[in-house]
């Protein structure tokens, strides 16, 4: 064979852009010829993936060329759910949309419900919704990982997942809890490989030992939903052994803050503050009160304080009192967690040893927020990482908080070898916006929809006490629902509760299938008509998707989107960031090929709609379009003066970073730079960021904040204490009896754990049923990819050896799995490496017949299945006669993994998974049979 190869693939100009098949957002080199994508590989220079690419990214060609792509705007031409449409022009489509939306804005903007699913442009879509004036906007975070995000932001001003990362280069021990794949998937894999090759150790806490968990040095096969207890037990042992970082607690956390502990006092549970609202601490040396920010203060951790009759005690003392309790001793939690006491004990020991006997330091002077100069960054090289195995439970918020408190007492957050923030994080809850609800006719909403409440005064009630948002976010049922509650939207719209709506407008969410709780019920709600009027109960549905997914058939008007290689996008610091602990980065997507169909980028369409609806911010004084296109918006829009969607190449000479005047040539600069922009953080600013003066200054310069925002970590979460103090509220804002009890039990300002399954229910439904992300599939979209569907063409239910034996299962058997509300019939398989009471399957492999450009009888629909049919948004009625929502009481996060079931072997001669739904008619042709 010829030695010097010249192939087309390496001869082309490569277009450097960003992958889309998950929120990792790796850099890709797309080789293009004659408007055809011929090869996609990882971009070596990209800060996120450094050249590597996952299975989804590598098969991007068939994401882009998928047979299931929609071709033209569609108008429903049959009943909802039939799949019958007629093709219309874009002009016509926009005209219809405007006809529907214009009167809504004029009369009752809240009747537009705009939810954007797996949106990677939330700062834009949110802004659009704000200009429209509806309070009803959110993306999908409420059913995804709001527990993780909110607990993190409230506690340490950042979270695992995209907000920060283990210090892969220096950590020596990583504890990874409840993670299968995660958003940061390539960096995690790169990091795990590096860590193991350096001789570092990994401990995995997960009911299932696959993927990352399989390569861990030690595996704790925990019983689902009990991580909080395990973590607090580790806290217990570490306290008991005096293995805590006192100095870190004293200087950088609210451990020394004084909490009022006089029950009858108005400020019971709240911090002692001075008249400027600055929390006070006792000085260790003088025993006097001082502002915690005082330059000279040496905060005491243990000293109580009394003012008149009121007693104050430190957060630290409260914490000790709580966690030294024998309730949390390893032997007392072992059974509940399914983990031997010796393992918990040994793990605590290991953690303590690495944190305190193997600490590291970087000799670099820095100044803390009190103005004290320090000569080095001390590091405790233990890091933690957690994701949906923790957050997708109804005790997830508190469990996430517990993990952060564990990191805090070890002093491992944002230190060398620990967990490190990625800019624009850290950003405390106080530096985030508060949620806004004030809507009115023909005007924008008074501010951004989503944010972080500081107390009941920020909740989402209107002046008359009525609930402001359709998803009931920020109500007493889930006061800290920082990402909204997409999973309640369809139900609430259907029920007209809290009010009736007019148009449901969705983008990129497969709500009639894999992202719904109880698919069958959801479909019913989307299709049911009012028996009197014959009209649909949810009057109008507009939807934007690129593909013929299960949800398309349930909309009245379809706005077909492009694929990720055909449009502009920005991965913005105003949004879900990419970045590295020592680098600030953002990136773009741009049309590396032109669409061969009559489709348009959704963001362009939104802007167009905005102009047609004459939304402020989108039009000039002469009422014409302010932005030519989304690309133009990306370059020209300023959120705050000098701060826009992209932080790189700003200013007239395109050399400003972070802040600077808009630059007409910005996107070109990004393209030339490889599709992204990054700038290193000076070493002096790289660690201890929340308290590091030079970082704070740098962050202001970069436009991450407008003023320095130093803060201390919130072991004790005062906003929760405030929620528990409802007595001062006007009557119409009070939570009501049954909720009050729950608030007192669950909204403890110090992390607690409770069991999600009550023993009565557990008797009849003894097993925990969970899902995992397969690395080679992205939710529902992977199945349209002809390569990926050969790897995961159908799924099985993996059961433990115990369950396998108990039910005498054999290879090829089928089982009926029953939850408290419904049943599914599915194929089973044995996996030994899993918790004995757990069953699991790969997520979102099951497909509805007729969709995704696949033939009607593919295994994905005939054998594959979803667990979603078993999960409901409301739990069965409890003894209190109340149907509690299947979600976290604090954030409203959907509790996917609280599912409990029973299982029985069934004879399934037809080898068909159940339930089977009728085949949907497809307006697009089934994909080709042969690809060669």
């Amino acid at each position, binding site marked *: 064979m010829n030695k010097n190869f010249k192939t087309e693939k390496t001869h082309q100009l490569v277009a450097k852009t960003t992958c889309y098949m998950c929120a990792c957002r790796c850099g890709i080199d797309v080789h293009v010829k004659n408007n055809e994508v011929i090869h996609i590989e990882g971009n070596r220079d990209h800060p996120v993936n450094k050249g590597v690419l996952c299975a989804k990214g590598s098969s991007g060609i068939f994401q882009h060329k998928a047979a299931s792509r929609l071709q033209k705007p569609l108008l429903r031409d049959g009943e909802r759910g039939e799949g019958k449409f007629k093709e219309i022009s874009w002009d016509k489509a926009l005209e219809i949309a405007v006809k529907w939306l214009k009167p809504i804005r004029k009369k009752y903007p809240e009747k537009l419900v705009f939810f954007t699913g797996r949106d990677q442009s939330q700062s834009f879509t949110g802004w659009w919704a704000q200009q429209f004036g509806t309070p009803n906007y959110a993306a999908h975070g409420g059913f995804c990982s709001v527990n993780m995000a909110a607990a993190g932001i409230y506690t340490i001003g950042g979270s695992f997942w995209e907000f920060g990362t283990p210090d892969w280069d220096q950590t020596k021990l990583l504890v990874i809890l409840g993670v299968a794949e995660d958003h940061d998937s390539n960096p995690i894999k790169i990091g795990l490989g590096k860590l193991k090759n350096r001789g570092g150790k990994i401990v995995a806490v997960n009911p299932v030992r696959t993927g990352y968990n399989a390569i861990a040095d030690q595996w704790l096969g925990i019983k689902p939903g009990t991580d909080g207890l395990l973590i607090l037990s580790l806290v217990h042992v570490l306290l008991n052994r005096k293995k805590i970082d006192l100095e870190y607690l004293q200087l950088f956390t609210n451990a020394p803050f004084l909490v009022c502990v006089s029950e009858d006092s108005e400020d019971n549970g709240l911090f002692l503050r001075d008249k400027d609202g600055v929390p006070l601490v006792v000085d260790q040396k003088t025993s006097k009160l001082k502002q915690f920010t005082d330059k000279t203060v040496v905060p005491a951790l243990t000293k109580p304080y009394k003012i008149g009759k009121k007693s104050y005690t430190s957060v630290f003392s409260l914490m000790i009192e709580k966690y030294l309790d024998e309730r949390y001793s390893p032997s007392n939690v072992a059974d509940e967690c399914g983990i031997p006491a010796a393992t918990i004990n040994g793990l605590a020991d290991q953690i303590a040893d690495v944190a305190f006997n193997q600490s590291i330091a970087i000799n670099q002077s820095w100044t803390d927020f009190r103005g004290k100069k320090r000569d080095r960054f001390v590091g405790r090289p233990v890091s933690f990482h957690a994701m949906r195995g923790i957050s997708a439970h109804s005790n997830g918020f508190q469990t996430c908080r517990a993990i952060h408190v564990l990191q805090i007492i070890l002093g491992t957050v944002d230190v060398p070898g620990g967990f490190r923030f990625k800019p624009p994080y850290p950003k405390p809850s106080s530096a985030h916006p508060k949620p806004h609800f004030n809507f009115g006719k023909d005007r924008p909403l008074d501010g951004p929809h989503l944010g972080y409440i500081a107390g009941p005064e920020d909740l989402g009630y209107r002046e008359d006490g009525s609930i402001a948002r359709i998803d009931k976010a920020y109500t007493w049922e889930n006061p800290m629902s920082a990402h909204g509650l997409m999973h309640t939207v369809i139900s609430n719209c259907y029920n007209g509760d809290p009010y009736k709506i007019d148009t449901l407008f969705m983008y990129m969410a497969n709500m009639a299938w894999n992202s719904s709780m109880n698919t069958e019920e959801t479909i019913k709600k989307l299709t049911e008509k009012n028996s009197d009027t014959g009209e649909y109960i949810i009057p109008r549905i507009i939807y934007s998707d690129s593909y013929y997914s299960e949800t398309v058939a349930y909309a009245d008007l379809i706005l077909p989107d492009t694929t990720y290689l055909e449009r502009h996008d920005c991965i913005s610091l105003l949004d879900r960031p990419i970045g590295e602990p020592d680098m600030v980065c953002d990136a773009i997507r741009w049309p590396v090929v032109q669409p061969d169909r009559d489709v348009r980028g959704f963001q362009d369409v939104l802007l167009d709609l905005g102009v047609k609806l004459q939304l402020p911010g989108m039009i000039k004084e002469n009422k014409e379009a302010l932005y030519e296109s989304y690309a133009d918006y990306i370059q020209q829009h300023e959120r705050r003066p000098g701060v826009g969607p992209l932080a790189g190449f700003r200013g007239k000479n395109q050399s400003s970073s972070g802040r600077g005047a808009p630059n007409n040539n910005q996107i070109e600069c990004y393209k030339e730079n490889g599709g992204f922009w990054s700038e290193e953080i000076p070493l002096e600013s790289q660690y201890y960021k929340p308290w590091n003066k030079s970082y704070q200054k740098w962050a202001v310069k970069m436009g991450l904040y407008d003023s320095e925002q130093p803060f201390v970590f919130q072991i004790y979460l005062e906003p929760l204490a405030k929620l528990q103090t409802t007595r001062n509220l006007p009557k119409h804002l009070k939570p009501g009896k049954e909720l009050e009890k729950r608030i007192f039990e669950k909204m403890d300002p110090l992390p607690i754990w409770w069991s999600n399954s009550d023993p009565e229910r557990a008797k009849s439904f003894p097993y925990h049923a969970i899902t995992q992300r397969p690395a080679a599939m992205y939710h529902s979209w992977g199945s349209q990819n002809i390569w990926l569907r*050969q*790897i*995961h*063409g*159908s799924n099985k239910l*993996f059961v433990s050896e115990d369950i396998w034996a108990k039910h005498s299962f054999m*290879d090829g058997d089928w089982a009926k799995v029953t939850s408290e509300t419904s049943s599914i019939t599915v194929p089973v*398989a*044995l*996996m*030994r*490496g899993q918790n004995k009471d757990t069953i699991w399957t790969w997520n979102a492999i099951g497909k509805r017949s007729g969709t995704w450009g696949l033939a009607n009888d593919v*295994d994905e629909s005939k054998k594959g299945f979803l667990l979603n049919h078993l999960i409901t948004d409301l739990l069965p009625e409890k003894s209190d006669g109340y149907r509690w929502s299947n979600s976290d009481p604090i954030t409203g996060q959907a509790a996917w993994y609280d599912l409990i079931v029973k299982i029985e072997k069934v004879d399934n001669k037809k080898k068909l998974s159940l339930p089977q739904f009728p085949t949907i008619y497809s307006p697009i042709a089934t994909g080709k049979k042969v690809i060669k």
Partner: protein
Amino acid sequence: MHPAPSIILFTILSGFGFGVIAWVGFLQYFSLISSLEVIAFSILGGFLAVIGLISSTFHLANKINAIKSFSQWRSSWLSREAVASIVSLLLVFINLIIVYFGKNTVPLIGIIASLFSIVTVFTTSMIYAQLRSVPSWNTLLTPFIFILAALVGAAILLRPDYALYGLAVLLVIQFLFWLYRDQTEKNMKTNISTALGFTEESSIRSFDKAHTNQNYLLNEMVYKIGRKHSRRLRYLSVLFSIFIPVSIMLLVRFDTYVVGAIVSVIHLLGMYFSRWLFFAEARHAVSFYYDRS
């Protein structure tokens, strides 16, 4: 291994054909048959061999290049087979011409054709016997049984008297082969541990598939046959290939080729089962990567 009908037919028919050719040359040399018989059976043998060879090309996915398969006779048994079979057929053809023109004076060509046809069957058998990847084939018994089957099968037609002994030996060899197969299956040096590089034998199982559907490897190399099924087919095979022919031979007088032909067909049917099992029961090493246990 997947028991592909085209390959089974190929090995059986071409084996039988070359067996016939081998006998013809031998009988011709000792003048035990007439010229007419030489001509008729050479044509029959050649025809079956050619049918077998054609049938084997059904298995080729890219027939255009079949011609190139003669090139590697120095290293490849398949190539040697191709060369040997063509040489045998050529010799048969020459012999035929000579005999046709009444010059049955150089029976040497016939005996050389006869030897070459045995060599051809041997090369065919070596295609399988050489494969370490299929331990149960990787034995001298494989060429032995292939050659024996070819000769015995043809003998039923041409020399039923010898065939009786031949069938007895075939029975023994067939049982030896099965015994060998079962033993290698049990004591395979290759197992899931060696397949994955583990030095000591460990309990390992596959829990999830590398791909959820079939692929070329699974279709071709991973074929599972139930124990019971296998036993039944072994009985049937011996019944048809040996016991019925032997019984008929003992009971009926073989004075026309018609009886021989019928018995041969019965025998070949039995051999079909045997050959089917030869493939179906052979375990290819790659199956360890796919096993669930």
